[in-house]
């Protein structure tokens, strides 16, 4: 009697997963945990640093408070420079990224070889971090904002190019055929058939990337590529933590404002 009752009970209880699914799920969990533990244990972690970490952290906070507001006047120029680097870099990006995007989109590229070249440019540009591009351009143009502008532009080409190329591949072919039917040349088809369809995506990605670039250009100074990062890095190296905290506050404000502007503009466009 009790035996039968319990089997009935088992049938009644609803389960989300069948036993097989549960087994597979747990196998995945174990697999993921194993990989994570392997990674962590292979890194030579100096655990004794953890012993005084909280003391170090507290020490840092005490030294950073209060922010040194007298330092603010020195920050204004580098701050404007930071914004300039991001904006000019983004402007250059647009000029270079658009042709590359048309090369890298399957329906507008000339032949498979040009498609491959376009894709390689995009992958190469995106794989290298802005700061690494910064290292390279500082070696070429010397320290200063010009290196920063090129670093920003070279990293952004891949980002913009990829998104625009994807948009080009998803356009409505009807409009293109209609314009081709009027006897338009290849360039005219690009200009009147394809470009208007992807323009909102272009504007959106430009504004979005600009906002990311503001954030990136705040650290370009660490490798000497101009902007507020130069001051931040020198304050850190001189252990002037109260200057550091003010700089961070300013960076926080600028990034928040640019994020707000970018979100607002993108909402208007779409």
């Amino acid at each position, binding site marked *: 009697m009790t035996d039968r009752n319990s089997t009935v009970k088992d049938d009644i209880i609803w389960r*989300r997963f069948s036993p097989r699914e549960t087994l597979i799920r747990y196998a995945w969990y174990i697999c*993921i*945990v194993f*990989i*994570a533990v392997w*990674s*962590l244990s*292979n*890194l*030579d*972690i*100096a655990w004794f*640093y*953890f012993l005084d*970490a909280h003391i*170090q*952290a507290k020490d*840092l906070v005490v030294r950073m408070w209060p922010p040194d507001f007298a330092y603010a006047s020195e920050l204004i120029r580098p701050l*404007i*420079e930071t914004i*300039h*680097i991001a*904006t*000019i870099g983004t*402007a250059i990006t647009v000029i270079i990224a658009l042709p590359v995007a048309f090369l890298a989109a399957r329906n507008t590229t000339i032949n498979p070889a040009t498609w491959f070249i376009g894709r390689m440019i995009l*992958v*190469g540009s*995106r*794989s*290298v*971090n802005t*700061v*690494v591009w910064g*290292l*390279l351009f500082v*070696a*070429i*143009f*010397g320290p*200063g*904002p*010009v290196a920063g502008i090129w670093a920003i532009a070279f990293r952004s080409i891949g980002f913009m190019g990829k998104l625009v190329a994807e948009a080009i591949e998803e356009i409505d072919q009807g409009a293109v055929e209609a314009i081709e039917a009027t006897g338009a040349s290849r360039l005219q088809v690009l200009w*009147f058939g394809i470009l*208007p369809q992807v*323009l909102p995506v272009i*504007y959106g990605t430009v504004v979005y990337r600009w906002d990311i670039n503001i954030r*990136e250009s*705040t*650290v370009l100074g*660490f490798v000497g590529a*101009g902007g507020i990062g130069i001051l*931040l890095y020198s304050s*850190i190296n001189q252990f002037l933590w109260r200057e550091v905290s003010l700089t*961070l506050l300013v*960076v*926080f404000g600028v*990034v*928040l404002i640019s*994020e707000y502007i970018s979100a607002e503009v993108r909402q208007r*466009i779409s």
Partner: protein
Amino acid sequence: MSDNQQLDMPQWHRIRLIGNPVIRQGLIIAGIIYLLWSVNSLDIDWARIREGFPRAAGILARMFPPDFSRWQLLLKGILESVQMALAASFLGMILAVPLGICGARNIAPAPIYLMARTCIILSRTFHEIIVAIFFVKIFGFGPVAGVLTLTVSSTSFIAKMLAEDIENMRPGQIEAIRSTGASFLQFLNYCISPQAMPRYLGVSIYRLDANVRHSTVVGIVGAGGIGQVLAASFSRYDYDFSMAILLTIVTLVFLGEFFSNWVRGRLR
């Protein structure tokens, strides 16, 4: 009269994003003025720029052929970067769950929601390198600082996506589960998790791929990984080795992206 109208009719105009011509042209002019002003206000040493082009050719010439002779150092750095990325993604995935749930307006109480959102915004605002510097100061040089930096940025990224996902859920299922008298844990398990899981996994996989990319750069401030090797080779003008490292990074990122696209394609 009617003739005139017919002539007016076929006049074709492109549809503009900004309808008002005054605003449109004004924006273009403002943009040009801004560019002129900004280029002028940056103190650019044009002579140094001109010098840069032959220098770029020189550097490029020294980069080829890439020097893979120190492949042990390269492999060690790359492996460390990948391990940092894996560990940070795993920690980020775990930490993002509570943070994401707390950051969803429709299921978290207001004070907790605000706190969680503040955390997310704070860690998203500061670039990885700034965060890395602080972790290097606290935990010393080495991969720990790198792992923690990437953990912070992955946590806030995944949590933000998760919170938005939960906020966009249909209220129907939420009410249905709540009306059965489910506890909060049961509610999470049977209502939130089935709906949020596919996207959460997708975002986490994407983040793994982003972490591989970012792990190559936190090393520049001493937080471990291939970035440290790369920065050292640059400062020693060891450009052929730098090129070898860069090529390896590009390949790795390419593979990572391929893997991430494949997994996300299968999740859908």
